[in-house]
């Protein structure tokens, strides 16, 4: 690997051509995800053409892209962004779906003063900001509990969050009145979060026969969270610590990183984002329902691994995860439009998770081989 014996030992990376610059900027893994996206869209078009289904036409409508797709991916997208941080640190958080359920119920009950929290009765009802904050805060507390179980009780992250997956889900039912959903239909300011649109008057040409309907507020929220967490992971000491812990926890500890502190903060972040996802679920479904978040963790984890995160930790980006979320979203959406039933979709999602992890493992093995080869030469 040595360049040569010159004292000037650092030579700048030489990349020529726009293509190389693009690969350098986007990353080779992400580029293959983009390629997969194009192939998938192409396939949906072809398949609908062959079988004479109208799914292909619908797919390319603003109606579909802005309503079904851009909104459908938001909740899973948020959970996947939080999950990325946890997986890059070499851990796992299976409980995000249940935390979202808690966030959903807490936000609804604070908003309308119902359920267990409503019965306490010291919080003002009808205030959107307080309701949203309460939902996020509930998620942060749930995440803190996860973090304490992993660091203080030293329970393996998978087992710890499998336990809280059940416990938090049950807790969400306890918070709601008799386990029943809490309706928030009477709160238009709150439901605007999920149903509102920006730029509705923007003059954009019709696509696929349906007219431009604006950019959903939900999508804007997702993009903002994605950018914030990306900044956190790439430009802060916390992000560096996450990558270092995932890559080699012992080395990180011996370099003075407080593993427990970082891990607890990481679970609090993941929990807070899951709480926010729960708040948005309440807004979209117009009720704080303890089953709102059930099963979402599977899609989120699938997206993270598909997005290029290493199963052993230390590798993974928010950008890759977002691309994978869109890919999973299009896959679901396409299968819906083409008339596949939900059972087939669940089979497909399960297989996709396994395929994503298999690809991740294969990448790690390849990198390992490359490393030992160069080390032997040097």
């Amino acid at each position, binding site marked *: *690997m*040595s*360049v040569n014996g010159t*004292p*000037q*030992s*650092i*030579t*700048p*990376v030489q990349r020529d051509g726009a293509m190389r610059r693009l690969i350098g900027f986007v990353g080779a893994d992400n580029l293959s995800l983009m390629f997969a996206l194009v192939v998938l869209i192409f396939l949906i078009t072809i398949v609908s053409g062959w079988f004479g289904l109208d799914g292909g036409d619908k797919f390319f409508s603003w109606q579909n892209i802005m309503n079904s797709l851009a909104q459908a991916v938001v909740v899973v997208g948020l959970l996947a962004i939080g999950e990325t941080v946890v997986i890059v640190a070499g851990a796992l958080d299976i409980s995000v779906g249940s935390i979202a359920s808690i966030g959903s119920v807490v936000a609804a009950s604070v908003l309308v003063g119902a359920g267990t929290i409503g019965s306490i009765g010291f919080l003002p009802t009808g205030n959107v900001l307080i309701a949203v904050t309460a939902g996020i805060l509930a998620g942060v507390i749930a995440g803190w509990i996860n973090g304490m179980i992993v660091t203080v009780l030293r329970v393996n992250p998978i087992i710890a969050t499998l336990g809280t997956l059940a416990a938090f889900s049950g807790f969400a039912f306890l918070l709601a009145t008799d386990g029943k959903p809490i309706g928030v239909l009477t709160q238009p300011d709150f439901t605007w979060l999920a149903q509102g649109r920006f730029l509705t008057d923007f003059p954009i040409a019709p696509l696929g026969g349906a007219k431009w309907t604006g950019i959903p507020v939900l999508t804007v929220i997702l993009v903002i969270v994605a950018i914030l967490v990306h900044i956190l992971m790439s*430009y*802060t*000491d*916390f992000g*560096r*610590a996450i*990558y*270092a812990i995932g*890559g*080699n926890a*012992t*080395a*990180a*500890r*011996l*370099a*003075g*990183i*407080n593993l427990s502190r970082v891990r607890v903060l990481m679970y609090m972040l993941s929990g807070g984002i899951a709480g926010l996802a729960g708040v948005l679920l309440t807004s979209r479904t117009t009720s704080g329902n303890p089953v709102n978040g059930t099963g979402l963790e599977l899609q989120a984890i699938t997206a993270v691994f598909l997005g290029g995160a*290493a199963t052993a930790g*230390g*590798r993974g980006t928010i950008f890759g995860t977002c691309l994978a979320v869109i890919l999973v979203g299009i896959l679901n959406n396409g299968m819906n439009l083409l008339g596949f039933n939900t059972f087939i979709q669940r089979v497909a999602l399960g297989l996709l998770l396994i395929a994503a992890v298999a690809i991740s493992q294969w990448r790690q093995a390849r*990198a390992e081989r*490359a*490393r030992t080869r*160069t*080390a*032997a*030469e*040097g």
Partner: protein
Amino acid sequence: MMTIASAPVPITAPARPGNLEIRSVSKAFPNVQALTDVSLDVRPGEILAFMGENGAGKSTLLKIINGDYRPDTGTLTIDGRALAFSSPRDAHKAGIRVIYQEPEIIPGVDVAENIWAGELPKRFGLIDRGQLNTQVRRSLAEYGFDDLLPMNLLGDQLSSAQRQIVEIMRALKTGNRVLALDEPTSSLTDDEVERLFTLVRRLRDEGVAIIYVSHRIKEILRLCDRVAILRDGRLIAVKPAAELTESEIVRLMVGRDLTDVFQRRPAGSDREVLRVDALYSNWHRGISFHVNAGEVVGFAGLVGAGRTELAKVIFGDLPKNSGQVLIDGHAVTIRRPDDAIAKGIGFAPEDRKREGLVLIRSVLENASLAILRRLSRFHFIRSGLERTVVSGFVERLRVRTPSLEQEVGKLSGGNQQKVVLARWLAVKPKVLILDEPTRGIDVGAKAEIYRLIDELANEGLGIMFISSELPEVLRLSDRIYVMQNGRITGELAGASATEEAVLGLAMADHLSAGPATTATPTQEGSTA
């Protein structure tokens, strides 16, 4: 305490003569020639000792005999029949058994099953417990170990000595022709050692060929018939034990010509930067020493003397039971590595791949890992400052890397070590602990590291230099502490120290005091 029966009956299967001939065996690993052209006979009815410093090739030779490694060139024959081992199982079939220092013990299974693991006596497809227990109880009594190894203990309840006995029993249950013991007495008390010796002598008298690996010269001279001495992968001498003395053995083990001529000029001030007072831990019994500013202080000793653990206790990664650490004359409390770093201690660990580096991340991220706080404003890393700081050290240490974004795992060993050093220099520590900084790196890179250690000390850094390579300890250190069994057994001035003197202190037998099993009251008391 001797419980051997008065009329010894043969305790192995009918002895078949087993003359193990090792001919021109060589073995290389990346960057290391572990064995070069070793030829040796292991004869039935004698105890042959393997001696040598750490890294002399004893373990590699044992592993080749056991079939763990295949020699690159050379042959092994037993009674003229060539052996081509591809696994330890083949070696066992040929009647060769190596008893390692840390045997594999199945945790949840009792003594008898551990001994017979893999070959349990069966009846109707079920384990025949009655037969198993009778057999094991009988043989334990026969070998005089019955009171040391209660049958009802499970694998994870066994002490190191008991594990050793289980491993020996495993080897004895099948008739072996060649039996090798690797440091068998390191975890045994005096009484246990005597029983083991009685057993080994008896096996020899029954015609078993025995290889005995130990650092304890006195034991070797007392027990063994011949001594084979290895140095730098070569067989230096094979002599009858009766013709050797302690000092003769030490001379043979270390007497090498020093090709590298780097010699540090003695330096150092009187200003103490690090002092450790009466430190007790699970690994240490009363360690006291100091390091001055601008001084390289070598820590010599055999593997397992407790040097790495000492570094980790000081650095806050392992707990201490009592004792004090002073930095610049002030007592400090260090609970975690980040406390140690904040107090001005840096630590480059022994195993840089497992403990030093995040291999899949970049040179930049690895080098700045310990100073992230200092580089950040409101937790945002000032990337311009980070690059300036890191590239400064990367250039100074001459890390050969295509860019700062290069994955550290793709660099050579020497360059990886320099990245670890860059990380710790960036911290601007008062004391730098280097644990085996030149392990597994090539000669050129070694010379660079030596030059760097010298430079850093001249700039006023106090360096605690742990190394198992005696020549480099002697060449670089202003003072040398020698450790054995969790204690400092001596302090030598760098200029006047010789390899013989260091090795003498490192191997000074403390048989009367007894190792680990006789813990001091202070240690026990302060744990609570």
